């Protein structure tokens, strides 16, 4: 290995390079296999009948029909949960992006007393575990009559996604040039106008990154709905799936369970594959605090 590296500017790969490349390819391929195989297996199993599932974990399904999907969507109410999830996640996403951007903008670009305190209070919310707040939160929502309702869930999502949003957009708004907002002020634009017509459009790349992470985080959310949204018709996907999985032990409709898993995963995964370039860009932005 060492000899190979000392030899001066070889035009073709050295033996050290080749063997290293083989080992690293093997390692990466193994990892890729570990990632893909379980997902592929889940997809295939989702087309199997229950007796096929019991027969062998490898055999391909006899025919690819969507019976499991139909029964997951209808009988297991995955359709309703999916709809609830979409409503809750997208409403929460809209409000948290709007409120988060507003709050971050004021904190980043205006000097006033208490500015730092608010900023650090937001930062603290990012580190403390939700579990510490969950019990009182239950009673706060009960008091304002929003327990077990979708608006209550949306409001809670907004509140808990706020620190991350503000923290990230804060640094983003700091980097935007001051000259432009000054020019707007000189041209007679008020604070409202400056924010909505100038600063917000300029912050679009930052907003997109935060929105992606917020979406994944909210779509992923499990504890908040499970504790604060306990009426079955209001279930979101994550808790509906969990209930279905714990029931499947008795009702044994494993095929439908796998189908439900695919229904939950597929939309996000497809969107990711389409937009993966932008998303990887977002991750790298996230690292440049």
């Amino acid at each position, binding site marked *: 290995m060492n000899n*190979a*590296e000392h030899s001066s500017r*070889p035009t073709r*790969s*050295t033996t*050290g390079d080749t063997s*290293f490349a083989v080992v*690293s390819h093997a*390692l*990466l391929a193994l*990892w890729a296999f570990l*990632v893909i*195989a379980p*997902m592929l*297996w*889940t997809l295939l199993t989702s087309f199997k009948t229950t007796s096929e599932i019991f027969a*062998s*974990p*490898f055999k391909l399904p006899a025919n690819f029909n969507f019976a499991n999907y139909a029964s997951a969507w209808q009988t297991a109410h995955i359709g309703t949960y999916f709809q609830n999830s979409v409503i809750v996640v997208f409403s929460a996403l809209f409000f948290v992006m709007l*409120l988060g951007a*507003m*709050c971050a903008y*004021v904190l980043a670009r*205006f000097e006033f007393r208490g500015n730092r305190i608010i900023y650090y*209070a937001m930062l603290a*919310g990012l*580190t*403390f*575990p*939700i579990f*510490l*707040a*969950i*019990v*009182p939160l239950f*009673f*706060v929502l009960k008091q304002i009559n929003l327990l077990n309702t979708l608006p209550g869930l949306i*409001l809670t999502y*907004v*509140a*808990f996604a*706020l620190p991350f949003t*503000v923290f990230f957009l804060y640094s983003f708004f700091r980097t935007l040039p*001051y000259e432009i907002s000054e020019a707007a002020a000189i041209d007679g634009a*008020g604070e*409202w106008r400056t924010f909505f017509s100038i600063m917000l459009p300029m912050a679009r790349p930052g907003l997109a990154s935060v929105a992606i992470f917020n979406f994944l985080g909210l779509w*992923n959310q499990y*504890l908040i709905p499970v504790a604060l949204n306990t009426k079955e018709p209001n279930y979101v*996907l*994550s808790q509906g799936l969990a209930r279905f*999985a714990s029931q499947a032990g008795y009702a044994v409709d494993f095929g439908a*369970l*796998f189908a439900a*898993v695919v229904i*939950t*995963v597929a939309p996000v995964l497809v969107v990711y594959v389409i937009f*993966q370039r932008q998303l*990887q860009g977002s991750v790298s932005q*996230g*690292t440049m605090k």
Partner: protein
Amino acid sequence: MKASTAVVDAGPPRRRTRRLTFDKASFMLVFLGLPLAIYTMLVVSPFIQAIYYSMTSWNGFNKNMAFVGIRNYKKLFANETFMKAMGNNIELVVILPLVTIILALVLASLVTVAGASHGQTRGIGGAGFYRVVSFFPYTIPAIVIGIMWQQIFDPSNGLVNGVLTALGLDRFDSFAWLGNEVTAMPVSIFVIMWGFVGFYMVLFVAAIKGIPAEIYEAARIDGAGRFRTAVSITIPLIRDNVQTAYIYMGILALDAFVYMQAMNPGGGPANSTLTMSQYLYTTAFSKGQFGLACAMGVVLGALTMIFSGIVFMVNRLTGGRDEVTMA
């Protein structure tokens, strides 16, 4: 400041008018007031209430909320199940971030700088593919990851035992990976790790790409091998990212609720995978002992703070601040 704007720009730059116009007053009120009201009501106040409730015997439904001081905490530390759960969380927080981050770092180095040792510094071929695939698990909700792997480790119909018996290892015919006291925890750790390695790999890849190629070339000219380069160049230069990753993974390990709830809702064989979060959840929402549950929350919060403090301190003590920085 350009001279042409000097006419209008009389005052010091970046200062707005001091007069409180309606525009500005309404702006501040809505922009700051609205988010803060929601945040205070649903995040800050519950955190503070939790600390108070943790010192009461509150069970939620009757009005009497006797102040009991630190009795709940005493009860917790004498409770074997809770201490077992805390032990499990500590095991998680020691192992999980370490293995996840090491694996993510190895994979990230491979796809960025571990390519041929001549010519330009680059990763190995097909790096883009590996990066895209690695990120897949991050797009899957945690609960689904848990359910999926629970099925894969299923004793009789699962993929793992299917593969093992096909290889002739008959003793795994119906081996309950998640139902065995010895294997339940390692399997759970593996599953959580599966969900996060790709995300941190992508994060580290982005950080490594920010390191100027000249540094790697200089190291190579000086005769540093790949391992040496990774340890002496890559890690010191991205140590802030590693620290952030470590803290996030640690916070996750102290929680771990969703994964454990999906794979072993009851806490696993002999409570071997029970976490504080699971115990808190049942104590609050099944048993209704809200005061006690809040005390568990406070312990969990305190452990999170202690953990973050330790990570910061270790990073400081190992020279986190006086390393080469890329200005």
